[in-house]
């Protein structure tokens, strides 16, 4: 059940209605039921997976708590944490990486001219498995570290792992934030509901209006690279950065908005990342819940920056390699992560040099022009990495890079537009996307200045809020890419 499906638009109001109508003591059971229904709408069997992960981490946390009260020392607690890690990551590896590992083994043997043909399993990747397993593991480590007490109510904990707004695409919540919110029943709030709805509408705008429309062009170019010249590839690569941002952040914002209506504050997952002026800053503002998860549960345990520069750079590289692998079982993702890590390391190594150069040239690092130039350079670097993210093989990624490096005739972009079946409609859609990008830029610029546009809207008179709500819903329904496909050109033929 995707957020942009009719099912969800029926499901969510019913859940909200039920939540605020039933007695307080039943509220978290209701949300748990709704969350499992939400997850099982993809595949009923998924319930077993999430239940397994929930059971393992719940038991481990209770055991950890018991061990701590006994003050029996570190070894047993470490074993418990290790058991939780192995069982959960084992599940993740099996479902997400098993076939990838087999392919990798075959490739390694092939280097020594040994041909292996290991039979494959037909494994279906369960939706959101990487998200809920990381969330559950984070909880185990938090309990192990003593940051939070173990949750005794199994159902409340199960709700923490499966809370439907953020179950399948994050934000990956921290137990310290979410569990305590789930422990108290929430009352209906008119103001909070309005804010939640505005957030959801913004999310739908990003996902359905912008991301899915841009995807049409990006998919067209990336689906047949050889048919398009370098300018097309360049534009598609730039637009892919926007698409993935709108897609992912749109989904996160809908999650935050939906949870807010239920009275739960989820963490923000994106903070105008494409306005960053360095790759390191980009990663602090992009998929914040995952980046901070890796920081707290991998980078710092590895030693972080406490063990010298060389070790720090190695740790950064490890984190980014793992992050790449987390995104998908393919070497393309690994390379995507590795290049991002290298950019960060190189950026940090060159930092003194850059500062010196700026001082010599009397450049003010905080000036608007400097920030714009740094922003563009950062975008180009991050966008370059996306080539590996968007393509399915390294060969394909190299083909895209080659095309971009020898772009050909830029006029082909315009002639291509005019050659469309309905050039006027295509041109209108291009202008529309450009206009939407300006809206996105404005909202992100406001956000980076600490201004949330929604609070400005909510500060207006109620008639304005009503009009805005109506216009936003109509705009999304009209301009969004949803429903059964439709191509105007095909409707023209009626002479039969």
């Amino acid at each position, binding site marked *: 059940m995707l957020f942009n499906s*009719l099912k969800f638009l029926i499901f969510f109001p019913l859940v909200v209605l039920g939540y605020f109508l039933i007695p307080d003591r039943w509220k978290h059971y209701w949300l748990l039921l709704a969350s499992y229904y939400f997850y099982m709408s993809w595949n009923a069997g998924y319930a077993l997976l999430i239940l397994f992960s929930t059971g393992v981490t719940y038991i481990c946390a209770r055991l950890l708590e018991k061990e701590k009260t006994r003050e029996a020392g570190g070894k047993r607690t470490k074993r418990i944490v290790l058991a939780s890690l192995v069982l959960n990551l084992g599940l993740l590896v099996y479902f997400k990486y098993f076939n990838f590992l087999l392919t990798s083994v075959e490739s390694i043997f092939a280097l020594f001219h040994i041909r292996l043909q290991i039979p494959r399993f037909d494994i279906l990747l369960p939706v959101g498995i990487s998200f809920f397993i990381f969330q559950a593991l984070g909880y185990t480590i938090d309990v192990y570290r003593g940051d939070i007490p173990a949750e005794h109510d199994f159902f409340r904990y199960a709700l923490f792992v499966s809370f439907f707004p953020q179950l399948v695409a994050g934000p990956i919540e921290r137990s310290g934030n979410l569990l305590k919110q789930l422990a108290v029943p929430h009352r209906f709030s*008119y103001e909070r509901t309005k804010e939640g709805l505005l957030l959801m509408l913004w999310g739908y705008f990003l996902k359905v209006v912008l991301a899915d429309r841009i995807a049409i062009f990006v998919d067209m170019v990336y689906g047949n690279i050889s048919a398009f010249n370098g300018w097309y590839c360049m534009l598609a690569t730039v637009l892919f950065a926007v698409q993935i941002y709108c897609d992912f952040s749109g989904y996160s914002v809908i999650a935050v908005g939906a949870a807010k209506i239920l009275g739960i504050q989820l963490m923000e997952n994106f903070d105008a990342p494409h306005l960053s002026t360095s790759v390191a800053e980009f990663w602090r503002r992009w998929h914040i819940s995952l980046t901070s998860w890796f920081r707290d549960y991998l980078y710092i345990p590895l030693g972080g920056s406490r063990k010298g520069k060389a070790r720090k750079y190695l740790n950064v590289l490890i984190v980014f390699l793992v992050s790449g692998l987390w995104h998908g079982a393919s070497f393309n993702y690994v390379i995507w992560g590795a290049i991002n890590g290298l950019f960060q390391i190189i950026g940090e190594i060159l930092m003194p040099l850059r500062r010196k150069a700026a001082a010599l040239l009397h450049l003010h690092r905080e000036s608007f022009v400097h920030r714009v130039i740094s922003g563009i350079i950062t975008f180009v670097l991050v966008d370059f990495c996306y080539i590996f993210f968007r393509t399915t093989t390294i060969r394909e990624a190299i083909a895209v890079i080659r095309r971009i490096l020898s772009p050909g005739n830029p006029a082909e972009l315009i002639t291509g537009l005019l050659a469309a079946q*309905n050039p*006027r*409609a*295509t041109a*209108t*859609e291009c202008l*529309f996307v450009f206009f939407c990008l300006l809206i996105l830029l404005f909202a992100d610029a406001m956000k980076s200045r600490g201004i949330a546009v929604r609070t400005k809207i909510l500060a207006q008179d*109620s008639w304005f809020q*009503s*009009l805005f*709500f*109506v*216009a936003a*819903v*109509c705009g999304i*329904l*009209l*301009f*969004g*890419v*949803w*429903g*059964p*496909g*439709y*191509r*105007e*050109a*095909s*409707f023209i*033929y*009626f*002479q*039969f």
Partner: protein
Amino acid sequence: MTGNSTLSRVIAVILTFALLLAALFGLSELVKRKASYIQYADFFDEKQNFDVLFFGTSHVLDAVQPMKLWKDHGFLSYNFGGHANAIATTYWAAQLALEYTTPSVLVMDCFDITEEAKTSRNSFSYVHLSLDAFPISRTKIRAVKDLLQDEEIDRLIAEEKLINEENVAVIGQEEERDPITLLWPFSVYHNRWSALGRSDFRPVRNVQKGAETTVGVYKPLDRRQVPPDEKLEKDTVSIAYLEKLITDCQARGIEVLLTYLPFTATETEQREAHRLYDIAEEYGVKYLNFLDLGVVDYETDCYDDTHLNRSGAEKVTAYLGDYLAANYTLPDHRNDLAYASWHGDYETWRTFQHALLQEEDQLFRYLMLLANKNYSFELSLGDSRLFAAEPYGKLLRNIGIDEKYPTVTLPGADLEIRVRDLDTGEEFDAVQGTFELNTAGELIDVKLRHV
């Protein structure tokens, strides 16, 4: 929170949702594809009961002119032909139309009774043309449900015979086979926002009571004639729906006339036409097989291989009108004040028909359009070579002019035609033509200008 603020919030929410519904309704009206609505606007606006309804495919759309039937016989009819409609789609279009009117006669053209699919296999979107204009109702929900339970289309999809490169269900399809598209057309038409044109803001309704007029002349292929005893043997899904339509109509007291409208039919199609004699006999209904009637001249009356042009429509409509008047009890409403609006509609249609001639710049189409019993014309011919150049010779003979027609001297032109409407006596168009000859002195083109 005080009681007052709660009340004001409840009112604000109700008003917001009311405004939202109104805005969505307005948007739906704007972006919807207007084809179905403009075609059936006159049907829904009609206060009186229709006497005759015509159903079938585009063959019916192009061949039957209800306004001519009004002019000649005074009965009320509407053309419900649908582009590429399978018989099952027509069955449901008829069921929907019969919720609004009970005609004395339902004329059903039975082209493509061989078809096993319930909707066009060429394009699912054609169903919109027949169903969109009908508001949501239990019958419409049943229609949509039934039309999408289509074993033939499912089989073709399963065999990947109807999947295009975008994995959309059917080749040439522009939308998924999803009931929501037919029950809530906004779900598919909202994507039209970037392609809205002037006609969306100022839709022009069909002034031909559902019919269409095709202006063109085409010489179709010659086909082998199939003996009458060769006929479609198997029972098909389309035949089942046809039989259901006949029995439904008979249960409602509506007489059914089956037709097989003229075109140069393939052997399979001729076998269809032959099978229909059996069906008509079995159900005790009349059947007109135009393939055997010789009403049209395929060399002058075709728009393409399967459709008639305006000249063909004139002949078929005239024949059908006479047949209906002779074989069924149909009232003549021409002098009934309750039907006065049809006189106004006829004037609109007449203007529309005049415009076809006034805007025509090709002589062969102009001559084809002159084949209209409501027109008289004066033709001055300066050069008899026109008879030797086809299709002009045949088209001239089609309007009663042969080689014996005298030539005259025309200053500055080779031909002049003045057309008069017989009802009003008004000369509404005149053209002059200049012949273009090749070096051998043969006519290769005619430049036509309105004077």
